[in-house]
Protein backbone atom coordinates (compact mmCIF):
# COMPACT_ATOMS: atom_id res chain seq x y z
CA UNK A 1 0.00 0.00 0.00
CA UNK A 2 2.74 2.35 0.99
CA UNK A 3 4.63 1.69 -2.20
CA UNK A 4 1.57 2.39 -4.26
CA UNK A 5 0.90 5.59 -2.37
CA UNK A 6 4.48 6.62 -2.78
CA UNK A 7 4.30 5.89 -6.44
CA UNK A 8 1.10 7.86 -6.83
CA UNK A 9 2.50 10.77 -4.92
CA UNK A 10 5.75 10.80 -6.89
CA UNK A 11 3.89 10.64 -10.15
CA UNK A 12 1.65 13.47 -9.14
CA UNK A 13 4.56 15.60 -8.06
CA UNK A 14 6.48 14.96 -11.24
CA UNK A 15 3.38 15.73 -13.28
CA UNK A 16 2.97 18.89 -11.27
CA UNK A 17 6.52 19.81 -12.15
CA UNK A 18 5.79 19.20 -15.79
CA UNK A 19 2.81 21.52 -15.52
CA UNK A 20 5.06 24.12 -13.92
CA UNK A 21 7.48 23.90 -16.77
CA UNK A 22 4.63 24.23 -19.21
CA UNK A 23 3.50 27.41 -17.51
CA UNK A 24 7.04 28.61 -17.41
CA UNK A 25 7.33 28.18 -21.13
CA UNK A 26 3.88 29.43 -21.98
CA UNK A 27 3.90 32.55 -19.85
CA UNK A 28 2.23 34.68 -20.96
CA UNK A 29 3.69 37.29 -18.64
CA UNK A 30 6.93 37.36 -16.77
CA UNK A 31 5.26 37.08 -13.34
CA UNK A 32 3.51 33.93 -14.56
CA UNK A 33 6.79 32.39 -15.49
CA UNK A 34 8.32 33.43 -12.25
CA UNK A 35 5.49 31.89 -10.31
CA UNK A 36 5.94 28.71 -12.28
CA UNK A 37 9.63 28.58 -11.50
CA UNK A 38 9.05 29.16 -7.83
CA UNK A 39 6.46 26.41 -7.73
CA UNK A 40 8.83 24.12 -9.53
CA UNK A 41 11.34 24.69 -6.78
CA UNK A 42 8.77 23.98 -4.08
CA UNK A 43 7.62 20.82 -5.82
CA UNK A 44 11.18 19.63 -6.05
CA UNK A 45 11.32 19.76 -2.25
CA UNK A 46 8.57 17.18 -2.21
CA UNK A 47 10.36 15.17 -4.83
CA UNK A 48 13.52 15.00 -2.78
CA UNK A 49 11.68 14.09 0.38
CA UNK A 50 9.76 11.39 -1.45
CA UNK A 51 12.95 10.02 -2.91
CA UNK A 52 14.33 9.85 0.60
CA UNK A 53 11.24 7.95 1.68
CA UNK A 54 11.55 5.56 -1.18
CA UNK A 55 15.21 4.91 -0.61
CA UNK A 56 14.77 4.93 3.13
CA UNK A 57 17.49 7.51 3.69
CA UNK A 58 17.65 11.00 5.07
CA UNK A 59 20.90 11.80 3.41
CA UNK A 60 19.23 14.10 0.91
CA UNK A 61 17.26 15.97 3.53
CA UNK A 62 19.56 18.99 3.54
CA UNK A 63 19.03 19.43 -0.16
CA UNK A 64 15.33 19.85 0.48
CA UNK A 65 16.02 22.17 3.38
CA UNK A 66 18.27 24.27 1.22
CA UNK A 67 15.62 24.68 -1.44
CA UNK A 68 13.07 25.68 1.16
CA UNK A 69 15.43 28.19 2.66
CA UNK A 70 17.11 29.66 -0.39
CA UNK A 71 14.82 28.81 -3.29
CA UNK A 72 12.81 31.96 -2.91
CA UNK A 73 15.83 34.24 -2.95
CA UNK A 74 16.14 33.93 -6.70
CA UNK A 75 12.48 34.70 -7.13
CA UNK A 76 12.88 37.73 -4.91
CA UNK A 77 15.80 38.89 -6.98
CA UNK A 78 13.80 38.76 -10.19
CA UNK A 79 10.83 40.49 -8.56
CA UNK A 80 13.12 43.26 -7.44
CA UNK A 81 14.61 43.37 -10.90
CA UNK A 82 11.20 43.90 -12.43
CA UNK A 83 10.14 46.38 -9.80
CA UNK A 84 13.27 48.41 -9.30
CA UNK A 85 15.76 47.15 -11.85
CA UNK A 86 18.59 47.34 -9.42
CA UNK A 87 18.37 44.45 -7.00
CA UNK A 88 20.99 45.66 -4.56
CA UNK A 89 20.67 49.37 -4.08
Amino acid sequence: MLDTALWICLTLIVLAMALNVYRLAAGPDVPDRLLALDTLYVNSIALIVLLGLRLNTKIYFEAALLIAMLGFVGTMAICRYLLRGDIIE
Partner: protein
Amino acid sequence: MTFFVIIEGVLAFLLVAGGIFAFNGSLGMLRLEDFYMRLHGPTKGTTLGIGCVLLASMLYFTVTQREFHVQELLITLFLFLTAPVTGHMLAKTGLHMHVRFSPRSRGSLPEFHDEDVGQGRVARPARARHPWRTRKARRSRLRQGETS
Protein backbone atom coordinates in the same frame (compact mmCIF):
# COMPACT_ATOMS: atom_id res chain seq x y z
CA MET B 1 0.75 -5.35 13.75
CA THR B 2 -2.33 -3.26 13.57
CA PHE B 3 -0.30 -0.32 14.73
CA PHE B 4 1.83 -0.62 11.65
CA VAL B 5 -1.18 -1.12 9.43
CA ILE B 6 -2.70 2.04 10.77
CA ILE B 7 0.53 3.90 10.41
CA GLU B 8 0.84 2.64 6.89
CA GLY B 9 -2.64 3.76 6.15
CA VAL B 10 -1.99 7.17 7.57
CA LEU B 11 1.19 7.41 5.63
CA ALA B 12 -0.49 6.38 2.43
CA PHE B 13 -3.25 8.88 3.04
CA LEU B 14 -0.80 11.66 3.73
CA LEU B 15 1.19 10.85 0.65
CA VAL B 16 -1.74 10.66 -1.67
CA ALA B 17 -3.27 13.78 -0.21
CA GLY B 18 0.02 15.58 -0.45
CA GLY B 19 0.42 14.52 -4.03
CA ILE B 20 -3.08 15.61 -4.87
CA PHE B 21 -2.69 18.95 -3.18
CA ALA B 22 0.59 19.67 -4.83
CA PHE B 23 -0.65 18.55 -8.20
CA ASN B 24 -3.76 20.58 -7.71
CA GLY B 25 -1.76 23.68 -6.99
CA SER B 26 0.13 23.30 -10.20
CA LEU B 27 -3.01 22.38 -12.08
CA GLY B 28 -4.57 25.57 -10.84
CA MET B 29 -1.66 27.42 -12.19
CA LEU B 30 -2.46 25.83 -15.50
CA ARG B 31 -6.19 26.23 -15.59
CA LEU B 32 -7.10 29.47 -13.90
CA GLU B 33 -7.65 32.35 -16.22
CA ASP B 34 -5.47 35.19 -15.02
CA PHE B 35 -2.23 35.61 -13.23
CA TYR B 36 -3.74 36.73 -9.95
CA MET B 37 -5.98 33.72 -9.81
CA ARG B 38 -3.19 31.38 -10.79
CA LEU B 39 -1.24 32.77 -7.88
CA HIS B 40 -3.63 31.11 -5.48
CA GLY B 41 -2.82 27.61 -6.59
CA PRO B 42 0.82 27.34 -5.67
CA THR B 43 0.72 29.55 -2.61
CA LYS B 44 -1.81 27.33 -0.98
CA GLY B 45 -2.11 23.98 -2.66
CA THR B 46 1.51 23.31 -3.21
CA THR B 47 2.51 24.48 0.22
CA LEU B 48 0.01 22.21 1.85
CA GLY B 49 0.92 19.35 -0.41
CA ILE B 50 4.52 19.62 0.60
CA GLY B 51 3.39 19.85 4.21
CA CYS B 52 1.62 16.53 3.90
CA VAL B 53 4.62 14.87 2.32
CA LEU B 54 6.86 16.20 5.05
CA LEU B 55 4.47 14.92 7.65
CA ALA B 56 4.55 11.53 6.03
CA SER B 57 8.31 11.62 6.03
CA MET B 58 8.47 12.51 9.72
CA LEU B 59 6.08 9.76 10.58
CA TYR B 60 7.79 7.21 8.43
CA PHE B 61 11.26 7.75 9.78
CA THR B 62 10.09 8.10 13.32
CA VAL B 63 8.38 4.75 13.08
CA THR B 64 10.95 2.86 11.07
CA GLN B 65 14.03 4.15 12.84
CA ARG B 66 12.41 4.30 16.26
CA GLU B 67 13.59 7.77 17.11
CA PHE B 68 12.13 11.19 16.68
CA HIS B 69 12.54 12.58 13.20
CA VAL B 70 11.08 16.01 13.22
CA GLN B 71 13.67 17.83 11.16
CA GLU B 72 11.09 18.16 8.43
CA LEU B 73 9.43 20.75 10.62
CA LEU B 74 12.26 23.04 9.62
CA ILE B 75 11.38 22.77 5.98
CA THR B 76 7.81 23.54 6.91
CA LEU B 77 8.98 26.51 8.92
CA PHE B 78 10.99 27.89 6.05
CA LEU B 79 8.22 27.21 3.58
CA PHE B 80 5.67 28.98 5.69
CA LEU B 81 8.01 31.89 6.06
CA THR B 82 8.90 32.19 2.41
CA ALA B 83 5.92 31.01 0.38
CA PRO B 84 3.61 33.89 1.33
CA VAL B 85 6.38 36.41 0.74
CA THR B 86 6.90 34.96 -2.69
CA GLY B 87 3.20 35.14 -3.38
CA HIS B 88 3.00 38.69 -2.17
CA MET B 89 5.98 39.89 -4.10
CA LEU B 90 4.83 38.15 -7.25
CA ALA B 91 1.43 39.76 -6.98
CA LYS B 92 3.04 43.10 -6.42
CA THR B 93 5.22 42.59 -9.45
CA GLY B 94 2.22 41.53 -11.48
CA LEU B 95 0.40 44.68 -10.58
CA HIS B 96 3.43 46.78 -11.28
CA MET B 97 3.82 45.23 -14.67
CA HIS B 98 0.21 45.71 -15.63
CA VAL B 99 -0.43 42.03 -15.93
CA ARG B 100 -3.95 41.75 -17.23
CA PHE B 101 -6.69 40.31 -15.13
CA SER B 102 -9.90 38.64 -15.96
CA PRO B 103 -12.58 41.05 -17.13
CA ARG B 104 -14.93 39.46 -14.62
CA SER B 105 -12.83 40.75 -11.74
CA ARG B 106 -14.67 42.91 -9.32
CA GLY B 107 -13.76 45.12 -6.50
CA SER B 108 -11.81 48.26 -5.82
CA LEU B 109 -10.36 48.82 -9.24
CA PRO B 110 -10.28 52.57 -8.88
CA GLU B 111 -8.29 52.10 -5.75
CA PHE B 112 -5.19 51.18 -7.68
CA HIS B 113 -2.52 53.69 -7.02
CA ASP B 114 0.40 54.60 -9.13
CA GLU B 115 2.76 52.91 -6.77
CA ASP B 116 0.87 49.67 -7.23
CA VAL B 117 0.77 49.56 -10.95
CA GLY B 118 3.86 51.38 -12.06
CA GLN B 119 4.08 54.81 -13.60
CA GLY B 120 3.41 54.68 -17.26
CA ARG B 121 5.66 53.62 -19.99
CA VAL B 122 8.94 54.82 -21.19
CA ALA B 123 9.91 54.69 -24.79
CA ARG B 124 10.72 51.10 -25.39
CA PRO B 125 12.85 49.29 -27.84
CA ALA B 126 11.39 47.16 -30.58
CA ARG B 127 10.05 44.09 -28.97
CA ALA B 128 11.69 40.81 -29.73
CA ARG B 129 9.66 38.11 -31.31
CA HIS B 130 8.52 35.55 -28.80
CA PRO B 131 10.82 32.60 -29.11
CA TRP B 132 8.40 29.78 -29.62
CA ARG B 133 4.91 31.17 -29.80
CA THR B 134 3.65 33.77 -32.16
CA ARG B 135 2.41 36.53 -30.00
CA LYS B 136 -1.32 36.79 -29.53
CA ALA B 137 -3.19 39.94 -30.06
CA ARG B 138 -2.12 42.67 -27.70
CA ARG B 139 -3.47 41.80 -24.32
CA SER B 140 -5.66 44.20 -22.48
CA ARG B 141 -3.84 45.92 -19.73
CA LEU B 142 -4.67 47.22 -16.39
CA ARG B 143 -4.17 50.85 -17.22
CA GLN B 144 -7.22 52.74 -16.22
CA GLY B 145 -6.95 54.78 -19.33
CA GLU B 146 -7.22 51.65 -21.37
CA THR B 147 -10.12 50.08 -19.59
CA SER B 148 -12.34 53.12 -19.48
